[in-house]
């Protein structure tokens, strides 16, 4: 193990990790937004849109991110749409993540028993109010475990961005292996970098889920 090598190239990893986190953050943010909108469209069954959403979700869930990225990065310029590595990475992540988040919200919405809706209606709330005050808060709580699994999944998926020339962690590691043949050091730093990013996220979500379960939220099986 070459400590000097590690300390020399550590800043490169820090920089790359920062980029990975940044892209993941933006991508996940928009994924949540897109997923939420898609699940709403399906929930209230907006005529044509909900078919389109269905098709999008199937396409996105049944193809690999890498291929989606190749298409965006190498294919689209041929019809005049030229994306930078960064926007390509974000677009790809959102295309993938939107469908996963939509499914998470959908299962949350579906888990709320119909009697909740009816008893909301029976105290004179409008449909909109029932959705806002009764269905939505419960559905969001129920979908937290699926949501957090998706966040971790999406952060992991960012590792393929080097394929569209984004100078992320994989890119740096591959570079160092190729240039200096310092495989052990490069790989060790790579693993460490991902642990530093993913471990806290994973721990935080585990704690939140535990707290939620303790609070008994969304546990409707009691009747």
């Amino acid at each position, binding site marked *: 193990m070459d400590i000097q090598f590690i300390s020399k190239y550590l800043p490169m990893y820090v920089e790359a990790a920062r980029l990975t986190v940044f892209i993941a953050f933006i991508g996940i943010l928009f994924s949540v937004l897109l997923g939420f909108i898609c699940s709403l469209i399906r929930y209230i069954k907006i005529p044509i849109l909900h078919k389109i959403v269905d098709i999008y979700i199937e396409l996105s869930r049944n193809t690999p991110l890498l291929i989606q990225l190749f298409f965006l990065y190498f294919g689209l310029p041929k019809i005049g749409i030229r994306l930078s590595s960064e926007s390509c990475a974000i677009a790809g992540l959102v295309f993938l993540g939107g469908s996963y988040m939509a499914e998470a919200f959908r299962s949350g919405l579906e888990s709320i028993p119909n009697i909740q809706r009816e008893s909301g209606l029976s105290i004179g709330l409008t449909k909109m109010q029932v959705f806002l005050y009764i269905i939505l808060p419960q559905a969001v*709580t129920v979908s937290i475990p699926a949501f957090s699994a998706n966040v971790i999944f999406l952060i992991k998926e960012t590792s393929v961005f080097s394929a569209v020339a984004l100078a992320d962690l994989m890119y740096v590691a591959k570079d160092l292996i190729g240039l200096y043949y310092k495989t052990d050091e490069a790989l060790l730093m790579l693993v460490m970098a991902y642990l530093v990013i993913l471990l806290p996220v994973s721990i935080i979500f585990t704690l939140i889920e535990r707290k939620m379960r303790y609070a*008994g939220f969304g546990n409707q099986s009691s009747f």
Partner: protein
Amino acid sequence: MKNDEKILEIKHLKKKYDDTVILNDININIYKGEVVVVLGPSGCGKSTLLRCINGLETIQEGGIYLNGEKISNQDKKMHFVRQKIGMVFQSYDLFPHLTIVENILLGPIKAQGRDKKDATQEAEKLLERVGLLDKRNSYPRQLSGGQKQRVAIVRALCMHPQVMLFDEITAALDPEMVREVLDVMLELAKEGGTMVIVTHEMQFARAIADRIIFLDQSRIIEESTPQEFFENPKTSRAKQFLNVFDFEVVKHSDSNK
């Protein structure tokens, strides 16, 4: 308790799911302060009747009128109607993410736009009456079935409904909790509340009802006072139904003779 002011009118109501007729030519008038108990074998359409009144089901023929105004199949303004008709369901249908007092206040504040302070005061008074004031900040999961059901009644009451509908609200409760819920209803009846009750508790039905409506095979078969219905049922179907609740003594010991 009953007077001549008609509150709820059901005329020639017919309800179908696809081709199955659930309710056929139902005619009922309900007067102010009256307690009507709907009895009948399971699957006779009693619960559907309540759900139709509360607009949770559309109907195929006939109409339902509240204070002379048609309320059936009125999707747009139904939430205004429901503010005047309270309903309590069989399952303890409290909102699990809200505290007890929040559960009760949701309707008055959001649907009726009432002042929060006044509504809170009233909610607390009602909770005190059903003996649950100390649970005001608990969550539904911390309450027993009977307690949840009492809260559900308070939640409906706090809307100042003109009619209250009770759909087998003790059917899912443990036997020892049934009483505490029925007592709340008896008290409401004493105070002159207008109520339509679907229940399987025959003793209770007899005690609380001004009038019994017996439904079977989607029609009204008999309509009479509780005394008449339980002691002298006119139809054989009603007799048969009441027999289900009597048990013959199987093993005769001396003390039974």
